[in-house]
């Protein structure tokens, strides 16, 4: 156990899922040809002026609501002045003094206990362009310049990499479910920086702060924080001093590497952006934003468990928003939700993955799905039968019963008929029956195989097993 307490704060940049950029009408897109999604505004041409995309305000209001933030009712933008080739105007339009949201929190569960991670503020800003270094040259792609971002800054309220990881996972989940961002870390639409310091006791002042940038995954955030905590501990124990600094996480090294020492506080010469008038956030704007917030994961989890879905299925459903949304549609119906979730996560997911479709691309309406669930529940259809006709179910509009009929699937659900078949098999296989009675469990599997063969699988295996065991007594 360490003698030190780590203090961790996290800054997250999230790209907003808008149609166009924040200050121009260029398309907000990823993976297009370099510099194809740009115009004179994005390029910072002389004489150009920013416009303001209302979609951005709406999404930021949604995010602020989801993050339990207070909302600034009169806000403006500021210019952050610094020279860098990826910064086309050599100032970034951001919100320094009037962030749209402040004093919020996100709840995580750590070691079975709930903990609130406090949000200091969240503000709107524009993304920079992307630079690629080729030998002595640097290439600039302005497609990303002007993509809307929100930056979410926590208070220094976390104590471990694990907490930061849980916070980021939660943040990603709710922002994704809120339709605010696609939160793809690998595409840079969600980026996290961590601030780490250590001290001996909570009554001590905060230690020297080190910022870690360029962390490529959530698990690496946790790793880099732990590595940084150890590095600082070693230095302090060895009575070495260090300055506030910026480090980056090196994937290959699996450790942090010094980028630059912060000599003095950066002077960004912030001042209110004169090209964009103050924005007044009305009650109506907030209400409209709230209205478009879909059901969030925590509520979904609660509901699914209440409806009898297993914990594992609940977790899996929430990992796939499209399926979860589809599943939500069923919640007001009376059906077996565990079977429904098994079907969605099992055979149906298999088919969807294979055919690269989503559930919404299939013909499985709510009514047909419920019919399907009922057929499974009353053994009209076994899982083996289902595999045979799954494609028809998902591509035709016929009722499930019709499809079953067309495929000559008729399950033997009549107990006496099953008994008759089973008794015939018992008669024909006395050795196996003997083996079973002498305690050889394998024998019953053989007999069961014979039953399935005889019935061509058109029988509910559970039911057959029950009857077989009874008849063998």
């Amino acid at each position, binding site marked *: 156990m360490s003698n030190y307490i780590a203090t961790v704060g996290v800054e997250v940049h999230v790209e907003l899922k808008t149609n166009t950029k924040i200050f121009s009408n260029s398309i907000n897109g990823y993976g297009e040809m370099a510099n194809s999604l740009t115009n*004179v505004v994005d*390029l*910072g*041409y*002389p*004489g*150009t*002026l*920013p*416009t*303001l995309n209302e979609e951005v305000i709406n999404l930021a209001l949604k995010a602020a609501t989801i993050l339990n933030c207070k909302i600034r009712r009169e806000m403006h933008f500021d*210019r952050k*002045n610094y*020279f860098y*080739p990826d910064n*086309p*105007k*050599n*100032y970034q339009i951001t919100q320094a003094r009037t962030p749209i949201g402040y004093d919020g929190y996100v709840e995580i569960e750590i070691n079975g206990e709930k903990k609130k991670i406090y949000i200091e503020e969240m503000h709107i800003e524009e993304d920079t362009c992307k630079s690629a270094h080729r030998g002595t040259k*640097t290439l*600039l792609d302005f497609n990303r310049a002007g993509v809307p971002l929100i930056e979410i800054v926590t208070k220094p309220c976390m104590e471990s990499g694990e907490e930061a990881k849980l916070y980021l996972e939660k943040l990603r989940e709710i922002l994704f479910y809120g339709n605010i961002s696609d939160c793809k870390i690998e595409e840079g639409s969600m980026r996290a920086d961590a601030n780490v310091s250590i001290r001996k006791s909570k009554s001590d002042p905060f230690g020297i702060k080190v910022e870690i940038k360029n962390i490529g995954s959530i698990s690496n955030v946790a790793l880099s924080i732990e590595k940084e905590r150890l590095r600082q501990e070693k230095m302090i124990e060895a009575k070495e001093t260090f300055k506030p600094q910026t480090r980056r996480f090196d994937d290959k090294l699996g450790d942090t590497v010094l980028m630059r020492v912060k000599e003095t506080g950066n*002077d960004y*010469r*912030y*001042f*209110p952006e*004169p*090209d*964009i*008038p103050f924005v007044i956030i009305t009650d109506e704007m907030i209400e409209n934003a709230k209205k478009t917030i879909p059901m969030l994961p925590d509520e979904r989890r609660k509901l699914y468990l209440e409806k009898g879905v297993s914990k594992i299925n609940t977790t899996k459903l929430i990992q796939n928003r499209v399926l979860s949304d589809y599943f939500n549609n069923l919640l007001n119906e009376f059906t077996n939700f565990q079977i429904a979730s098994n079907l969605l996560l099992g055979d149906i997911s298999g088919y969807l993955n294979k055919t690269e479709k989503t559930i919404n691309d299939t013909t499985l309406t709510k009514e047909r799905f419920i019919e399907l669930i009922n057929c499974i529940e009353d053994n009209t259809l076994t899982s083996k039968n289902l595999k045979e006709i799954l494609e028809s179910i998902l591509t035709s509009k016929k009722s499930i019963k019709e499809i079953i009929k067309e495929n000559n699937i008729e399950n033997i659900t009549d107990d006496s008929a099953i008994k008759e078949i089973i008794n015939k098999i018992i008669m024909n296989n006395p050795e196996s029956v003997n083996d079973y009675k002498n305690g050889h469990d394998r024998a019953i599997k053989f007999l069961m195989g014979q039953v399935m063969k005889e019935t061509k699988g058109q029988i509910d295996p559970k039911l057959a097993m029950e009857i077989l065991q009874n008849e063998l007594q």
Partner: protein
Amino acid sequence: MKYLNLKIEEINKLLKEKKITPTILVEEAFENIENNKELNAYITLNKEEALKQAKELENKEVDNILFGLPIALKDNIITKGLRTTCASHILDNFIPIYNATVVEKLKSKNMIIIGKTNMDEFAMGSSSRTSYFGAPRNPWNKEKISGGSSGGSATTIAARDVLFALGSDTGGSIRQPASYTGIVGMKPTYGRVSRYGLVAFASSLDQIGPMTRNVYENAILLNAIVGKDDKDLTSAKKEEEDFTRFIGKDIKVLKLAVPNFFMSDIVNIEIRNKVKDIIKVLENNGAKVDYIDIKYIDKAMTLYQIIAMGEASSNLARFDGIRYGHSKENPENIEDVYYGTRAEGFGEEVKRRIMVGSYLLSGENAKTYYNKALSIRDDMRKELTNIFKDYDLIIGPTTTTTAYNLDDPMDDPKKSFMDDVLVIPVNMAGLPGLNIPIGFDSKHMPIGMQIIANAFEEAKIYHLASFIEKELNLKLDPKGGEHNE
């Protein structure tokens, strides 16, 4: 026959009757410009394109009063395909790929852009002598300045090269040169004309406006360039109006205020006397005139320096040699691209203002200076707006002196700002203000009067200005020889 010396209504009639063509007007304009070459009013001429455009117009219907007329644009207004330098070395190879909104509006009226006029580098200065291309000369006396920063536009109008020019006014840059050269120059209300495509100097103050020979033509040109623009969030949505509508009406109804500060001894006595003469004329014609004190207007200069230089330091950061304009050759690294390009590209005054502006926004200074200046500016705006509860217009001199010599020393930056001490309060409050020539000093240099109205009341300004113009009936052609003194 010099068609461009005719009144606009007469030219329009001749065009409609097909007695003349736009080509004749364009050719005449270039002939005038050529004859006045030594005035150095232009940085770039648009000869080939203008003639081509004039030719194309010959088969078109003459559908508005500005049809086929040549116009000169200050060289900080972005013109697609036509070099736009801001009179700076850093943009001396810059050919824009889009048009300013005002340019699109002029094109929709089928006006013909004749060229880009000389100015102070990035509009920073008040004599146009910070131009990389040398200063323009005053048509009334070639040894004198034309003022600035819209010195080239003022020069070409005063010299009667063309009827129309656009300037920009951040701290008097339309009205002051208009006063020095004896023309009519209007700085409209902030937000009246789109700034999209005006290379920004101080974003919260910049405004494009018309510079013309007379009041009517000024109002006509303003009619053509105003309007809410979706590309400029600071542009204002207003009902369409005709700015000429009060022209020629009597002035008995007008209540006028003269700020005592405007008539204090900071202003040359000849100018004060001339303004007093005009006030008498106005009173004799039934206008009511009061001398009043206005709080804060003597502080406007200080506020202006803080706000304009702060904003400029940020606005000019984009000129870095990476995407357009001048770039240092064979730079060693990225710092060298920045330092080298900007050291080579910017002139002394621009560098000075960027440095002062950066300092003013640096660290705690932003709170001490810039934010405080913004808040006092609000107080000043309120104070001025209050005046208009009791008065229709504020009047006074436009400048403290008439145009001075081109070779007067430039090493006193405060002096340059003092040239604009009477025009700057208008920008600080976002109000409209206009210069109207009211006579000449003992050296036969023009004297101007400033008329200021409440926000969006430009029509009232033209009302009074047209009366003064008619009443004085000055001969304002420098080559006309005789002065109405």
